[in-house]
């Protein structure tokens, strides 16, 4: 600890801290542009000049380390004169076009110019003009306004890990940007909008829609990945206009993913449905809520409850999921599930309380070795990927596709899905001798060979002390998930690593806790006789279905709605009405979306985060928890009279109590470690980053990004030869453009979800 004096007052601070950190911590204003606490120090704008005793010239507070006994003056004549002069220089080339600038009213340049600048300038000459380049659908550019602070450049290099922004040119000719016209590809790119202190980089979807002072800010939780990023929603006249991050060091720091930032556009999609409807004799009719609810209940009552299945989106709130399962169990059925992309449920009884990250989000940042199994982490969970990237750990990856990572990969294996088991076994075997072999695995591991690649992965994983093995989306949806999980657990155990799950959606964990699974009640207690899992429900024709926030034809790995079409009765609690829904549903109960309803999400580390509604429900939509409550009442199910979502949440929380998930125990020892047979072209399916749920699928700007450009059947050039140069390939009867993609292993085809009907796995018929 050292003592320094600022403006006549003494402060204690950590040796080695920069002056600006001390002023910041003590609420002393020092103007700045280039300094940002999450970026490296550039000290290029000079706005933070302050007077330091015995220093001949003013010093930049952002780059000056403190020293014991240092005396600093932030408001002395000398400091003020320096700040005034810098401000004048910064404005030389600035167009001062605040009235037509989106940043106006929340602009650091405006604020600091008013606070520290002069009202006139000595500069009489011509100002320079910079022609802006198009950076894609998310970020609007007006580069004449740029003050060259280089925050965006450092962000691009240091945070996104894929340097795309730079400062080409020199002196007066320097132009911040990409040099070539290109769409920014980072999945965190929107943060550049926040860190740009001026109006050079602004939000394209939000452009020209409101002034900062006209909007209200409401705090809530992001509705897509399992991070639970803290966000603020800005609204005006009951309309969501934009989303920005809220700082939370333990979760998202100061960043959010583009998905969390721009998905709000889906709230006002054209196919939003705002009044209840029923289908009679093939035609849809708008009806009153009472009529629709009664119609739903009357028809469901006709059907044996064992033949009713409920499928829920894991993006629904804890409250909604809890009430849906309570409703189902109330009418006597355990057929409820949210695991739409899982095929293998054979070890579900041994699964932990919920798919737990196995550690805190911040722990990822400190790990020294990690093995990713089946995860395109960058696109699945951008913020978790950022933490892992920061760790600078030895990361090994085991994937079906040779994904590009934005950090160095220490060892990697790209393995066709049918060969996962033998290869994971090899990795486990390479770790033998390191520790106790879990019971039952001894014999299984005995007779496998270890390849060099497997050895390399095992070695990478044995770096340092803090190690973790993480299972991603492509592992969860693997047809041999139970075996994969067991092997991952074995690998974790043998390497002394923590096993962690990367739950797919914002409330996957909440769904488990709320009992939205066929084999466990809320709180995790096993049911006597498990109901059908999602895959079974969508492949065995049930008589009736209740859907919550889902489009199973897109959301489920069966890739089909044929069971729904064949059913006698389908109730869809949905925010959107599509042709497919019209086809199979009989009642549409329009529900409110994210921002329109209160609720709770539980993130990957098991943190419960509740939020209130931000805007009124659109049209006559109702929050799903209220709809479900009324359904429960109409079915006369006991104890269904909830008056608030908090009351529902408290009940779930009480049921969960202080139970904690254990990832170390509770996986099933496989009976054999055999690969799957495969003789044709194997399909690998990835859910594109901007297609994972109904809301984001309708976010227009995100759909225009390169990440959403996923059409086609991707095969490597060797495999492509079999198509003799044709541009289009018939896949399961549909025609898809052929895309050459070196990342795909031999014998496989990558087909992103949502393009063709049919299951995500196994062989595809091509011609």
């Amino acid at each position: 600890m050292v003592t320094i004096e600022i403006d006549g007052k003494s402060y204690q601070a950590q040796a080695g801290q920069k002056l600006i950190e001390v002023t910041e911590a003590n609420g002393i204003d020092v103007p700045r542009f280039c300094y940002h606490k999450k970026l490296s120090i550039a000290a290029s704008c000079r706005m933070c000049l302050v007077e330091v005793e015995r220093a001949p010239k003013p010093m930049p507070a952002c780059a000056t380390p403190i020293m014991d006994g240092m005396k600093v003056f932030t408001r002395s004549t000398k400091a003020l004169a320096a700040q005034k002069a810098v401000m004048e220089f910064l404005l030389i080339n600035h167009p001062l076009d605040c009235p037509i600038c989106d940043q106006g009213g929340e602009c650091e340049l405006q604020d600091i110019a008013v606070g520290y600048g002069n009202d006139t300038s000595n500069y009489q000459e011509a100002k320079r003009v910079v022609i802006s380049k198009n950076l894609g659908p998310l970020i609007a550019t007006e580069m004449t306004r740029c003050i060259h602070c280089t925050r965006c450049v450092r962000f691009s290099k240091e945070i996104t890990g894929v340097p795309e922004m730079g400062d080409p040119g020199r002196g007066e000719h320097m132009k911040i940007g990409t040099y070539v016209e290109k769409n920014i590809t980072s999945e965190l790119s929107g943060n550049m909008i926040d860190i740009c202190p001026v109006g050079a980089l602004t939000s394209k979807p939000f452009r020209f829609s409101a002034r900062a002072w006209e909007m209200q800010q409401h705090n809530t939780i992001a509705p897509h990945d399992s991070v639970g990023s803290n966000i603020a929603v800005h609204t005006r006249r009951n309309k969501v206009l934009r989303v920005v991050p809220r700082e939370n060091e333990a979760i998202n720091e100061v960043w959010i993913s583009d998905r969390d930032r721009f998905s709000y556009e889906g709230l006002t999609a054209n196919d939003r449905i705002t009044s209840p409807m029923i289908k009679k004799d093939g035609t849809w009719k708008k009806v009153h809520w009472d009529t629709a609810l009664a119609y739903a209940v009357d028809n469901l009552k006709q059907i044996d409850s064992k033949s009713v299945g409920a499928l829920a989106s894991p993006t629904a709130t804890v409250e909604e999921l809890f009430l849906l399962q309570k409703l189902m169990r109330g009418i006597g059925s355990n057929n409820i599930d949210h695991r739409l992309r899982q095929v293998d449920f054979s070890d579900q009884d041994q699964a932990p309380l919920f798919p737990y990250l196995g550690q805190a989000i911040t722990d990822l940042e400190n790990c020294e070795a990690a093995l990713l199994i089946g995860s395109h982490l960058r696109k699945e969970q951008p913020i978790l990927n950022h933490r892992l990237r920061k760790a600078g750990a030895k990361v090994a990856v085991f994937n079906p596709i040779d994904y590009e990572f934005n950090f160095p990969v220490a060892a990697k294996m790209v393995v066709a899905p049918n060969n996962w088991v033998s290869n994971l076994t090899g990795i486990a075997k390479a770790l033998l001798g390191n520790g106790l072999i879990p019971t039952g695995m001894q014999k299984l591991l005995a007779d496998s060979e270890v390849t060099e690649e497997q050895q390399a992965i095992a070695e990478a994983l044995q770096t340092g002390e803090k190690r973790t093995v993480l299972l991603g989306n492509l592992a969860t949806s693997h047809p041999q998930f139970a075996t994969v999980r067991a092997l991952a657990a074995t690998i974790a155990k043998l390497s002394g690593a923590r096993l962690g799950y990367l739950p797919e959606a914002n409330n996957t964990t909440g769904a488990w806790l709320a009992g939205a699974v066929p084999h466990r009640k809320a709180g995790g207690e096993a049911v006597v006789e498990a109901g059908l899992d999602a895959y079974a429900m969508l492949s065995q024709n049930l008589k009736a279905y209740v859907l919550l926030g889902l489009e199973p034809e897109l959301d489920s790995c069966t890739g089909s709605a044929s069971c729904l079409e064949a059913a006698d009765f389908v109730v869809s609690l949905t925010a959107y009405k599509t042709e497919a829904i019209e086809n199979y549903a009989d009642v549409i109960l329009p529900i409110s979306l994210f921002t329109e309803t209160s609720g709770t999400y539980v993130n990957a580390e098991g943190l419960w985060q509740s939020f209130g509604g931000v805007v009124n429900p659109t049209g006559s939509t109702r929050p799903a928890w209220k709809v479900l409550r009324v359904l429960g009442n109409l079915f006369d199910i006991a104890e269904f009279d909830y008056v608030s979502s908090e009351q529902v949440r408290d009940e779930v929380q009480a049921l969960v109590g202080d139970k904690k998930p254990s990832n170390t125990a509770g996986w099933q020892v496989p009976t054999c470690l055999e690969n799957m047979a495969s003789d044709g072209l194997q399909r690998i399916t990835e859910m594109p980053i901007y297609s994972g749920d109904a809301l984001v699928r309708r976010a227009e700007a995100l759909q225009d990004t390169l990440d959403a450009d996923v059409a086609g059947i991707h095969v490597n050039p060797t495999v492509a030869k079999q198509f003799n140069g044709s541009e289009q390939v018939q896949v399961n009867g549909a025609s898809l453009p052929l895309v050459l993609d070196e990342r795909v292993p031999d014998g496989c085809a990558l087909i992103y979800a949502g393009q063709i009907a049919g299951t995500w796995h196994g062989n595809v018929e091509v011609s």
Partner: protein
Amino acid sequence: MSTHTSKPNAATILSEESRLKIDTWIVKYPTDQKQSAVMGALTIVQKANGGWLTTELMDAVADYLDMPPISVYEVATFYSMYELEPVGEHKLCVCTNVSCMLRGSEEIVDHLNKKLGVNLGETTDDNKFTLKEVECLGACGGAPMMQIEDEYHENLTPEKVDNILEKLENQ
């Protein structure tokens, strides 16, 4: 047929000769700091391409040195010896920085403008000369000065300039 991630392939874009020359720069630096060879690489590639760099060539250099393309653009746009547009046979780089300006570089530039009929940054119609303004080339002692190819011409006067041009014309 489209291709996912069309990364430029240095091996197909850069000639073998260029690559071998770049390798002589690469070995001068620690193995994990290949990108230190970027300036040498750009010079080699520019020369092989008739005096200027295309974006494709810069991307190929980036690929060859394992660096992000934007970092190569930054280097190529910072230093005045790299050309991003086609140039004439002879590139006349006139320094107009402080010392040269004080010693009459404006007069030299005016003279060249008239003589060649082009402004700074332009190339003559016969593609012989490109006139270029550069910053201090470290020859302030001989200001005003200009650089042509690898040679410095110092203490310039309009007459001296005429002589130089004449020699180049007759080459």
